[in-house]
């Protein structure tokens, strides 16, 4: 392993600087670190900070919508909140959350000492705080923050005030961060695997991240191109999307969604990987249909490139186009169905226990599937003319993103944090967190299906009185869900403060994989020499399995 490529030399002797070594060395350690574990931790802390900022914005939205009429904020600020909530949650919350998990786990799962390009990794992370400071600062500018929706459709978005170039530049920065991160992940997986780990022996989380990284490399530059054209249309006299100059505003929608649809799979494929890791552990069975999971993931990634116009059925397309995008979209249900079948088949007759990560994973399978079903409804082009731009769409994508992507990040953190910190989280508070989250996420978003089908438009601060009851229920759910997340923060900070039962090396008795062959907490440097053996031998697992009836869960191993 390359000395320079894995860590700084001084770390060999006394480890990374701690707070007790002085404030300056400690701060410099975190600013300059190239260690994948340090950067993974920072990515995750950044992501959860953004989740709370974006969550606070959603509470402004839900407070305004608590009852009909205009109560709290101006319509312009309301629109800024919906726009910023989306940008912060997607680019600041979910994506860095998954990158954080990839940073921590991909090298450990494949037996690599670090990511292949550790300094690029540092750069990729430190771009983000600047990008989001710039994005959030637009809320204080003349004309307010961006308010044309996260999709930034021209000509509306070109009416944004001083904020527009800052928003565009912050999106460029996020793109650079994502692309560098993705290149790093691909190179690491293709080049630094343990010698005996062939591609089809890789853990599913690694597979899903490999495919996600390719999606990122393909589509983030397209988003960068689209917003660059917006910039030149506004400030440099071009007419890419300005009809008066011969441009075509609808073309922006095509380019945006050529990015935007693969983007939603960027937000969910790593979640599939996490759930495919957790369910076999707590079902104490090998993942059912490993190969088909890999092929299904690749199929979903491929299909994600040829379905983009289902976001724009109402824009006025030839019927042949509507049919193509409708059928292509429905095809995605096939590999997704393979995945859901495989998760259920893995659980079938398994020795299941329901520790917190498993609860979130099972919650994911059930609630993500609900979001998938409403997605199938939206895929039907003629029906979409009724659903388009209503709260039904809002309900659909929040079902796939919150109990989908966000639950999987939470599940992954609960699953791996004993490995990261060396102590167990509180199972009681973990379960409490799950049940409150699972109940209130449904209280928040299920009623939105009904108001959407009845015609309530999205991105509007006021609404007809007929929608009042479902809206107050949704608002109460949103506040309760938000405050339930403080349990999670408390539980994680407890682990980081090393308060709690010490974790064993294996942590979960049904866990496979290389990350469980290193001590808990994982040492600052792992796998400086590639491991010979890539899984825990079956006989060891069987021995542990025999003890299972007498004991429970993580106390084994």
């Amino acid at each position, binding site marked *: *392993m*390359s*000395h320079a*490529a894995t860590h700084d030399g001084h770390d060999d002797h006394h480890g990374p600087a701690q707070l007790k070594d002085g404030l300056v060395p400690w701060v410099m350690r975190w600013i300059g670190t190239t260690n994948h574990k340090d950067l993974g931790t920072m990515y995750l802390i950044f992501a959860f900070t953004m989740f709370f900022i974006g969550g606070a914005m959603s509470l402004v939205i839900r407070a305004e919508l608590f009852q009909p009429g205009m109560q709290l904020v101006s319509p312009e600020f309301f629109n800024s909140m919906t726009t910023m909530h989306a940008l912060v949650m997607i680019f600041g919350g979910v994506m860095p959350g998954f990158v954080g998990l990839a940073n921590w786990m991909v090298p450990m799962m494949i037996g690599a000492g670090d990511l*292949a*390009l550790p300094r*690029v990794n540092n750069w990729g992370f430190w771009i983000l705080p600047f990008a989001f400071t710039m994005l959030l600062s637009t809320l204080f500018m003349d004309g307010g923050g961006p308010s044309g929706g996260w999709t930034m459709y021209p000509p509306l978005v070109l009416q944004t005030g001083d904020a527009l170039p800052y928003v565009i530049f912050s999106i460029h920065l996020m793109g650079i961060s994502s*692309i560098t991160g*993705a*290149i*790093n992940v*691909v*190179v690491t997986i*293709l*080049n*630094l*695997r*343990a*010698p005996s780990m062939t591609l089809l022996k890789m853990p599913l989380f690694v597979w899903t991240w490999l495919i996600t990284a390719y999606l990122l*490399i*393909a*589509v*983030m*530059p*397209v988003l*960068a*191109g*689209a917003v660059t*054209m917006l910039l030149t249309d506004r400030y440099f006299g071009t007419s*890419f999307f300005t009809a008066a100059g011969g441009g075509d505003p609808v*073309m922006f929608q095509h*380019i945006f969604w*050529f990015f935007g649809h693969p983007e939603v799979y960027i937000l969910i494929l790593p979640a599939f990987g996490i759930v495919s890791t957790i369910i076999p552990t707590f079902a104490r069975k090998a993942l059912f249909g490993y190969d088909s999971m890999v092929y299904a993931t690749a199929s979903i990634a491929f299909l994600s490139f040829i379905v983009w116009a289902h976001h724009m059925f109402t824009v006025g397309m030839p019927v042949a186009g509507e049919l193509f995008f409708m059928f292509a979209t429905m095809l995605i249900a096939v590999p997704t169905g393979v995945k859901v079948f495989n998760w259920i088949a893995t659980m079938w007759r398994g020795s299941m226990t329901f520790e917190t990560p498993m609860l979130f994973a099972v919650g994911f399978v059930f609630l993500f599937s609900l979001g998938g079903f409403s997605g199938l409804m939206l895929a039907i082009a003629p029906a979409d003319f009724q659903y388009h731009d209503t709260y039904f769409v809002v309900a659909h994508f929040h079902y796939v993103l919150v109990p989908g992507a966000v639950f999987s990040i939470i599940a992954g953190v609960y699953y791996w944090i004993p490995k990261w910190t060396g102590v167990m989280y509180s199972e009681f508070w973990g379960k409490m967190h799950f049940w409150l989250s699972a109940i209130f996420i449904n209280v928040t978003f299920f009623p939105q299906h009904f108001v959407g089908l009845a015609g309530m438009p999205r991105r509007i601060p006021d609404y007809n009185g007929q929608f009042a009851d479902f809206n107050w229920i949704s608002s109460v759910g949103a506040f309760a869900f938000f405050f339930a997340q403080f349990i999670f923060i408390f539980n994680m900070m407890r682990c980081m403060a090393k308060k709690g039962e010490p974790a064993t090396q294996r942590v979960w008795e049904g866990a496979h994989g290389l990350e469980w062959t290193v001590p808990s907490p994982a040492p600052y440097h792992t796998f400086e*020499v*590639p491991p010979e053996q890539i899984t825990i031998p079956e006989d060891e697992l069987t021995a542990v399995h025999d003890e299972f009836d007498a004991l429970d869960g993580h106390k084994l191993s």
Partner: protein
Amino acid sequence: MSEEGNIQGHEGSGHGSRARTIRLALMLATLALTFFFGSFFFLTR
């Protein structure tokens, strides 16, 4: 892995080869740039 091994790569697996790492990273960066400029050509074809 030794410095020499690092440059040569781990035989059969390519494990840790610096040259391979950089070559692959540059190829992927080129792919990203292609998509960036491609988005303009798609529009102005």
